[in-house]
């Protein structure tokens, strides 16, 4: 039997990073196939290649046994592939009908849009696949789950037989997830093939027939969903080999550098994203936060940095209450920050490296002198960062855009470390960078730790968490559900806490730096 989709040896390189490295994927006709892997593992690049948005450097792609080359999504749509994006692309002030036919309107004589025909067709599609939506509703009146259904109808309307869903559950509440899964099963029953991208293990196990795991740009394996557990998957996703526990003695002191007490942060829908979290990080300690993405880590970081609105709770830097302090004051008081998305939060891509090195530290020496920027001082410091942190660049005058991901990250780590912070918030500090740069970053954090730096490390890479942390806490659904000793933990137990299968919830409110 020929596969619906077969990818062989797909390789895609970006400057300094290999996003996909010899990826192989075989999706059978009529199955729900999940692609699983951490953010930055290469899932989205692979899907972009499959959907014609990017071109692979190497490898072949065939659909129903026929080799094909897409140069744009239009080609992919013509070949029967449809993509449901994570972020909806709908015009809110238009009706469902308008949105669905937008770009492929049926016309009748004289070029007028044939709305009757369109509505009939949409109802047919809806009934055939069990997707209930009134074509005449305004999109702005729809719930999130319904909007997603509109997106799915949109691709079905265009004749798609193979659907790619990019993290479809990220925006849904549990009831909506159930509804989506019901829809997907009906779609499957009517002969559609579905590729489901996600990193929420329970969901992946529930909905898919087979699962392909991608790690650091490579396909690890393809497994039957029935034959694995969430912990098995977690292990496959992050790698099973336990790194040798950190040598060097513990440098943890008694001095609390950062404390968070009963912190609650609400998301846009007024639901608690961070739910009554308390933690302490002491000088010389690395506190690792483990958790599947989307469990409140981002909101926790934003609250500590000062960019999120805090609902209740207290944040203290050493003895100072900074709950209401502006970001700048926090940074000046010694809070360093390595953001999770360097392009979005960390860099001015079109500015020179020395200006990037100043970002976040522009109010202090050597970057400024009173009202004025100290350009000589800033360039000097950037040269130091370049040497000390091995940032490979022709000069400090090139724009940040010119550097590879690893070098951009080293610049960010360098600028934060060079400012000698007392507390460092490091979110996924080695995401999307090559192995060499990764080791450099780890060493920098270890070194700073021995000098008394308190680090809050948020990571999805269990190797990294176990290798660097003095204590690991697990975040699940906005709460801290477990405190673990990295010397004793293994990815399997960590995985079961991360997926909510196990919990020490009764202690959740008191989890802190001290292991219990």
């Amino acid at each position, binding site marked *: 039997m020929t596969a619906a989709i077969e990818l062989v040896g797909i390789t895609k390189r970006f400057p300094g990073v290999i996003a996909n490295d010899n990826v192989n994927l075989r999706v059978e006709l009529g199955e729900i196939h999940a692609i699983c892997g951490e953010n930055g593992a290469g899932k989205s690049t692979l899907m972009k290649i499959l959907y014609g948005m990017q071109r692979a450097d190497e490898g072949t792609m065939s659909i129903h046994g026929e080799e094909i080359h897409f140069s744009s999504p239009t080609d992919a749509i013509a070949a029967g592939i449809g993509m449901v994006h994570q972020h909806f692309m709908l015009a809110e002030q238009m009706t469902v009908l308008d949105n669905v036919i937008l770009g492929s309107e049926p016309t009748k004589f004289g070029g007028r849009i044939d709305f009757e025909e369109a509505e009939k067709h949409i109802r047919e599609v809806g009934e055939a696949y069990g997707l209930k939506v009134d074509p005449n509703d305004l999109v702005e009146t729809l719930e999130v789950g319904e909007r997603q259904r509109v997106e799915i109808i949109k691709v079905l309307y265009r004749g798609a037989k193979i659907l790619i869903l990019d993290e479809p559950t990220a925006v849904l509440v549990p009831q909506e997830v159930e509804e989506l899964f019901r829809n997907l099963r009906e779609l499957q029953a009517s002969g559609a093939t579905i590729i489901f991208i996600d990193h929420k293990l329970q969901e992946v196990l529930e909905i898919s027939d087979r699962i392909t795991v991608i790690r650091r740009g490579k396909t690890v394996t393809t497994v039957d969903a029935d034959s694995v557990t969430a912990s098995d998957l977690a292990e496959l996703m992050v790698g099973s080999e336990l790194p040798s526990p950190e040598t060097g003695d513990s440098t943890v002191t008694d001095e609390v550098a950062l404390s968070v007490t009963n912190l609650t942060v609400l998301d846009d829908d007024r639901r608690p994203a961070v739910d009554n979290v308390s933690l302490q990080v002491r000088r010389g300690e690395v506190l690792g936060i483990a958790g599947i993405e989307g469990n409140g880590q981002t909101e926790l970081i934003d609250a500590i940095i000062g960019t999120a609105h805090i609902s209740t709770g207290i944040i203290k830097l050493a003895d100072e209450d900074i709950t209401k302090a*502006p970001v700048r004051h926090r940074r*000046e008081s010694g809070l360093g920050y390595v953001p999770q998305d360097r392009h979005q939060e960390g*860099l*001015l*891509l079109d500015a020179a490296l020395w*200006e990037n090195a100043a970002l976040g530290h522009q109010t202090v020496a050597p970057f400024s002198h009173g009202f004025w*920027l100290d350009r000589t001082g800033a360039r000097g410091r950037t040269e130091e960062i370049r040497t000390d942190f091995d940032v490979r660049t022709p000069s400090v005058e090139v*724009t940040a855009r010119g550097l*590879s991901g690893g*070098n951009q990250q080293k610049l960010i780590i360098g600028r934060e470390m060079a400012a000698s912070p007392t507390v460092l918030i490091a979110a996924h500090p080695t995401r999307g960078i090559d192995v060499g740069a990764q080791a450099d970053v780890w060493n920098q954090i270890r070194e700073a730790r021995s000098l008394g730096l308190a680090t809050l490390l948020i990571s999805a890479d269990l190797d990294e968490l176990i290798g660097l942390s003095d204590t690991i806490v697990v975040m699940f659904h906005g709460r801290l559900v477990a405190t673990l000793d990295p010397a004793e933990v293994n990815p399997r137990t960590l995985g079961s806490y991360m997926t909510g299968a196990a919990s020490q919830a009764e202690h959740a409110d008191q989890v802190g730096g001290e292991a219990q």
Partner: protein
Amino acid sequence: MNASTLRRIALALAAPTIAAVVAIAISSIVLEVSGSDSIETFKTMLENGTKLESMIDTLNRATPLYLAAVAAAIGFRMNLFNIGVEGQYILAGFAAAVVGSKVGLPGPLHVAVIIFTAMFVGAAWSGLAGLLKVTRGVNEVISTIMLNFIAVGALVAGLLPRFIDDPTAANQGTPQIAESGWLPNLNGFVEIFTREITKGRHLTGVFVLAIVIGIIYHVIINRSRFGFDVRASGMNPTAARAGGVPPKRMVLIAMIAGGAVAGLVGMPEILSDNHSYDQGFIQGLGFAGIAVALLGRNTAPGMAIAAILFGFLDSSAAILQVSSLASSEIVVIMQATILLVAVVVYEVVNRIKQRDEVRRAAQMAQAAA
């Protein structure tokens, strides 16, 4: 000098050169199609434009254009689309004319009071839009456009009758400001280097003010911490915020500073030409200023060149009409063409530059590895 340096210099020069060549080509086609002799037209424009009196005229026109461009650019630098320069300068000009005619003070002080009034009113009017954005989240494009209508259509139109000097005059305006409130022209200074300026042309004293504002703008944006915050907010607001730049305060300060500079746009009229606000008060400079800011890439030197270019084209309109070589509207077509072509060419050159840089950094990394 190695090949890559040469390439960079060539790229930097390419943008304006290509823009100029393409703009001239398109304008020539328009001229020919409309039945004019393009070569003759350009020749006349150049010959006329190099006369001393025309150059003075060009600078007089460039001065308020430049001020309007700087006013808009302050916001543009941080992705704040202050479309309200138009309303800000008209309201400010009116207020300055009224205040200037009511007070009697010794020379320099009188001028200072007028300038201060204009800057204050411009800043307050613009600050209103900033306040709306910061407190109520109102988009500044919408609020500044609305405020333009309120300033010009309601406030100035409604208040002007109360301050009219001579109700029987054909062109009704505020009373003329006493001579102590006039800014001396720069003819004496220019004549040191050239010959006597004839035809009653005077280079406005505000020209000096525009240069000073340009220098201050350049230095603040490029050399100060505040300027760094402005540029960072413009390039990546999320990163700027994480880097401690207070977004709301930045919006307020940028709007107020832009408004203060906008207040100066009407000053040549008030301090040098009419010495009053009347119904013939020059309009449209706010929008022309936006075009100049766009053409000059929001940089002080770039906008200066763009303002002089636009000023030159504006001053050519008259000679084209007189010589009946071409319709004076051709000038507007040229301005629009230059702007359009420049925006496209800059974008193309920018992409080539970026690609070069990525390649160079990648080569470096490979060489080091």
